């Protein structure tokens, strides 16, 4: 495990005062929040993990435009401040609005909340950091609903933050990194970089790769610059929409299900990112675990049976959807039905028989371009809940998935959690998201969640399954797992960091990119 850098040096009182004065001059005193200001309470992880520790900021600023950001950067460089940029601050489950370390200057970009452009013909939007999915969806509705936005399960967050974190959605535009089209970034030295293809060109945001090197990917899950605008491709509203649910009763038939679905997935006959949930994961939308079992510890078999019976679901529950004209929807359904013949105990359901299924309602909305906040209902599973997610990527292979699922369940149970997990289906890979739902205010459960993720990470890394995303507390370890060829990738990233942000003013420690860690030339 890589050692973390020592905590940021707190700024001394005299320089701190000068810095604050400079910031007030630059932004106006209304937009600078210093110690004692209640506004600073907002910059924390709502789902705090006890071992993660105190990450309280030194101060916060809220710039209103690019010029002000450049002024803040200049002051940060002068006084050696550590900025922590955030957009809507709703990265719940991954650290929320907290910085990596205490003592940061929060750079809150929520005031910049314009929808710069919605291009209906070419189906994309350009938005600023403060725009939420709810905002964008409302605008698209107002424009006539011909375009869908692919929202995440947390639509009060925004596309800019979500795309930068490599978040995902569930429509055919759900792999957000594939639908990102152009960024405006401010580097640590104040330079503004537009990655779209030209200078205020007609083709901005149309062609995802600029003329030279395609640099956009450098700014995802990173701290090489402050992103102030993002291009987001939008999905044309389809002629028709049919969400579905496949239930498979027996846990051990996961392998058969995935192997049956893989060819369909590769042919594009399982559009979007169908989500295959375990029983507890799907059940949590409409129940609390206390209704099925008292006392601590994961649900036992008897409770599972009751849940399956009462909610009419299997151990496995695949929520997906088809898009297109009626005739096409019917073809999709037929193809799926044919594939499911090879899967014991598989049943296909549609909306008409799932009126009481709270999960169906939520997933159908998300897959249908209608942002829903109902994901949060799953946290009622434990009363007043919070969650911590562990994500790993596996090959789309029934055998591998079955083993991984068993390993996940074993580790969740060992730490007292139910196996609330889902496989998100992409054509060649599966993204396994294990959701640890814990009681927000119970420190022992916070610790247990933290320990569970550590255990899951260690196991999955040993199996060769990488994590594509991590909570702030786990970023160092996650980055360290990508160590092929003597940490070549880490060294290259560190080299870039040391040039683009020599003073380390931008989000030190984000994705384990710490300033000054590059050790120089390799032999």
């Amino acid at each position, binding site marked *: 495990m890589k050692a973390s850098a020592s905590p940021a040096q707190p700024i001394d009182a005299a320089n701190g005062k000068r810095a604050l004065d400079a910031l007030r001059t630059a932004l106006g005193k209304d937009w600078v929040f210093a110690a004692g200001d209640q*506004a600073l309470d907002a910059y924390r992880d709502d789902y705090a993990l006890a071992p993660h520790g105190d990450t309280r900021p030194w101060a916060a600023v809220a710039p209103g435009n690019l010029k002000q950001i450049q002024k803040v950067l200049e002051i940060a460089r002068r006084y050696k401040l550590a900025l922590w940029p955030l957009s809507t601050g709703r990265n719940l489950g991954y650290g929320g609005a907290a910085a990596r370390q205490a003592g940061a200057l929060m750079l809150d970009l929520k005031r910049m909340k314009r929808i710069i452009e919605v291009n209906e013909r070419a189906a994309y939007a350009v938005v600023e950091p403060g725009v939420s999915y709810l905002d964008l969806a409302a605008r698209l509705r107002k424009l006539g609903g011909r375009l869908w936005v692919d929202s995440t399960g947390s639509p009060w967050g925004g596309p800019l933050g979500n795309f930068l974190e490599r978040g995902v959605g569930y429509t055919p535009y759900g792999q957000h990194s594939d639908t990102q089209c152009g960024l405006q970034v401010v580097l640590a030295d104040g330079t503004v970089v537009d990655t779209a293809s030209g200078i205020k060109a007609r083709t901005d945001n149309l062609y995802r790769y600029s003329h030279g090197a395609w640099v956009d990917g450098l700014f995802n899950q990173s701290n090489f610059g402050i992103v102030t605008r993002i291009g987001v491709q939008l999905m044309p509203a389809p002629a028709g929409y049919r969400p579905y649910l496949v239930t498979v009763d027996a846990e051990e038939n996961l392998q058969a299900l995935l192997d049956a679905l893989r060819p369909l997935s590769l042919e594009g006959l399982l559009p979007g990112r169908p989500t295959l949930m375990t029983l507890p994961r799907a059940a949590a939308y409409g129940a609390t675990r206390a*209704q099925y079992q008292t006392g601590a510890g994961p649900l036992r078999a008897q409770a599972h049976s009751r849940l399956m019976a009462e909610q009419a679901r299997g151990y496995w529950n695949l929520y997906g959807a088809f898009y297109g004209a009626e005739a096409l929807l019917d073809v999709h359904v037929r193809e799926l039905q044919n594939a499911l013949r090879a899967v014991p105990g598989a049943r296909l359901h549609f909306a008409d028989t799932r009126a009481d299924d709270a999960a169906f309602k939520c997933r159908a909305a998300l897959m249908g371009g209608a942002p829903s906040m109902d994901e949060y209902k799953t946290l009622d599973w434990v009363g007043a809940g919070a969650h911590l997610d562990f994500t790993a990527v596996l090959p789309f292979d029934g055998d591998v998935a079955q083993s991984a699922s068993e390993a996940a369940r074993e580790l969740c149970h060992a730490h007292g959690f139910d196996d609330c997990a889902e496989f998100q289906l992409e054509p060649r890979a599966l993204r396994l998201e294990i959701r640890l739902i814990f009681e927000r205010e119970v420190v022992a459960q916070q610790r247990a969640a933290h320990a569970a993720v550590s255990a899951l990470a260690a196991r999955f890394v040993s199996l060769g399954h990488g994590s594509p995303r991590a909570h702030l507390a786990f970023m160092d370890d996650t980055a360290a797992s990508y160590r092929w060829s003597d940490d070549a990738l880490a060294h290259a990233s560190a080299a870039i960091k040391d040039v683009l942000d020599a003073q380390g003013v931008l989000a030190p420690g984000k994705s384990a990119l710490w300033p000054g860690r590059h050790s120089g030339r390799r032999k």
Partner: protein
Amino acid sequence: MVSRRSFIKSSMVAGLAPGLLHAQTADRHNDATVLVVDGDCADTRHFTRQCRLHRLEINDSIELVETLAQGGQARLFGLTRDSSYFIVASMSALHGYRLTYHGVHDFRDGQCRHQLRGEPDAMNALVANLPPAGALWTCALAEALPRLGNTQKAALIDTQCQAASATARRGHLVSWCVERV
């Protein structure tokens, strides 16, 4: 243009840190009060029957937000699942509401535990009335809540009480009041 006040409010996920509760202001300009309920169960049904307020059901917290944005209500009471409370508290903050009362009612293990925070007189009254109500604690709550805030005291207190649950149902509900200032 986003004002400083609404900017600060939009940053907060109000209510998760108890310290964010604010005393009710004396100036109550509008009596319009809406009852928000979700989590369809016997308890919430009792609650709505007993409460004589105009009811709004959260089917969709986003719709609630849009309602809030229209700014009609000065005060909203709710008896909801925790997740709905979490969302409402945060979203309503965007529209200038503050949390003035918060109660957690945990009856998952056969006991009914109530943890309350709000104005002293109202909290003391609730502490007295909830345990004897037993399974019908939501009725007691429904009677008490509309009377919240008739005093002008600034301080808020934490208090709790407990009773045996007379119902086999197990759950966790949150009651709350947000007020536009």
